[in-house]
């Protein structure tokens, strides 16, 4: 049976994060925790493959104990098992230290439930915005990576080949790769389903599997958490764009405002720069 692993992260809903204008610091209080939404697109694609071919879907996440809630949500949508790796020793991890722990976790998942065929990740997280953990995990597991996937065109279980469409700046690339692969999902990939009633009932009783550093006998403690992270944040600040003097144009009459604006623009070097002259 196909074995699909989906990596998810619980993140603060970035749309709700504000800067305190007095202190120039982040206001995190009361910011809701959500599943990084690109990860949900990865989960949905795994569930679609499960519907079509039959598959075991295992969800993994690294995070604090409160992330169990996010894992239950995945179970309510149709995931078979959910694993949380949680330990204070993992705190402060950058993308390199995170990909180490996530890759170790997937290896342990493979020992328990069989070799993985496809690992799904979101294209990036809302809080980190780096898109580096997916490639890092693929690299550590020594499997091919297909990043920024907007369509999974076909999966051939006979030849063990998957064909996807990768979104690039200037177009779309069709790529065929041999399983096992890691796919990072774009929002265009699909529309995540709602939890079903049986799913909700199962999730209510489901206890996610929790692993700590003690569950990884071979873990190298120099490679996890803050200590295992080569990058450090030396400072943060709120950017202050340069302000300019604004010329206000009369706006009682739209046509007059439009004409006034064009007159102003035509009096500058803009028409020349744009080749309108």
């Amino acid at each position: 049976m196909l074995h699909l692993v989906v990596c998810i992260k619980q993140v603060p809903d970035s749309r709700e994060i504000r800067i305190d204008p007095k202190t120039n610091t982040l206001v995190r209080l009361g910011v809701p925790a959500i599943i990084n939404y690109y990860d949900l697109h990865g989960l949905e694609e795994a569930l679609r493959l499960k519907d079509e071919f039959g598959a075991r879907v295992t969800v993994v996440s690294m995070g604090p104990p409160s992330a169990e809630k996010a894992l239950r949500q995945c179970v309510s949508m149709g995931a078979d098992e959910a694993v949380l790796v949680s330990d204070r020793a993992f705190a402060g991890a950058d993308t390199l230290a995170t990909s180490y722990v996530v890759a170790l976790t997937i290896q342990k998942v493979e020992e328990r439930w069989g070799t993985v065929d496809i690992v799904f990740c979101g294209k990036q997280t809302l809080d980190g915005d780096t898109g580096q953990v997916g490639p890092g995990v693929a690299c550590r597991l020594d499997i091919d990576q297909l990043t920024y996937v907007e369509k999974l065109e076909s999966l051939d279980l006979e030849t063990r080949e998957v064909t996807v469409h990768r979104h690039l700046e200037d177009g779309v690339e069709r790529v065929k790769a041999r399983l096992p692969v890691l796919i990072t999902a774009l929002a265009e990939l699909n529309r995540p389903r709602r939890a079903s009633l049986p799913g909700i009932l199962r999730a209510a009783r489901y206890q996610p599997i929790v692993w700590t550093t003690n569950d990884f006998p071979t873990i190298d403690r120099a490679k996890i958490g803050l200590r295992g992270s080569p990058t450090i944040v030396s400072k943060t600040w709120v950017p202050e764009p340069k302000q300019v003097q604004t010329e206000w144009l009369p706006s009682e009459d739209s046509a007059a405002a439009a004409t006034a604006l064009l007159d102003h623009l035509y009096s500058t070097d803009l028409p020349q720069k744009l080749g309108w002259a």
Partner: protein
Amino acid sequence: MAEERKRKPMIGLQSDTDWSEYRGVMVVVEQRAGVAKAVSWQLLGEARRLADKLESPLLALVIGHQVQGLAREAGYHGADRVYICDSPELASYRTRPYSRVCLYVIREYKPEIVLMGATYAGRDLAGAIATHLPTGLTADSTQLDVDDERLLLASRPAFSEKMLATILCKQFKPQMATARAGVFEALPRDEARSAEIVVVPPQIDPEDISTQVLGFVESLERVNLEDADVIVAGGRGLGGPGAFSLLKELADALGGEVGASRAAVDLGWIGHDHQVGQTGTTVRPKLYIAVGISGAVQHVVGMQNSTYIVAINKDSEAPIFRFANYGIKGDLFQIVPALAQAVRARRSGGLSPEGVLEPMSAAGRGE
């Protein structure tokens, strides 16, 4: 069924720790069909400054097939030495073969800093290489500098773009960063500059090329904000996706592109490719018209280098006006169509500007 490739996981790989030989700033040039991405030359421009400060050579790495011309171009754009790896197997970007070349060059020639464009391919490649080495990698930098200890100071948007963070990597070399397109300026192309060209043997392992690029369909619909001279951008004030058609009409009249704020993109009113802002596209058009955009810091930082900025908003207190050369307070549903019509009339009819021309105000921020 085909034979499955034997996996060789590299979890727990150790790295050597003598970094004293690492010198030079390297830019990995990204290309498609022999044409470089603009961000590659922009990065060479910025990296030239860093290399001069470090008194180190500026290096470029060109990977592809039939890309000798690009190696010379890299020299014209500022590189002192260009490593070139040219092979039919490298015609299209694929993670494994390209990684292998980069890793070979990094281990062989030991640059202290490696920079790539924060493009889809650049982020794909950088993430793989940094894990292999291993080293620290900063994504999507919008400011780069070096300090007295030869540390790369890579600054990037953080906390959903509301702040900037400076990130360092002290323990490992090379220090790596991807950097956003449109932020840095390329040096003027100069054919008098010549670079030393070093040919790198292809590092092809048949196992690496199991992934096949079946084809590439160029999107004609796709927006190109980075190179646009005129951008008409919309935000939450548009009230819904429909009003973007009005912006499109104005953009077409001006020969420009349609942009959007993160708010409008997050609401699903328009695709991510249209997003202006630090983690969208950083733009520097000659004319930027912000319609119904309040002017959140992350948006303004992404467009503040436009030559002329016009803001149209019904709220005269909106922060966007503080950054605009020209402000119109009013109903965008009236003003935008009127402006489109006026532009068409003036550009097609060859009408001379009517009305009294006011002298160029101090508000203009001409280059």
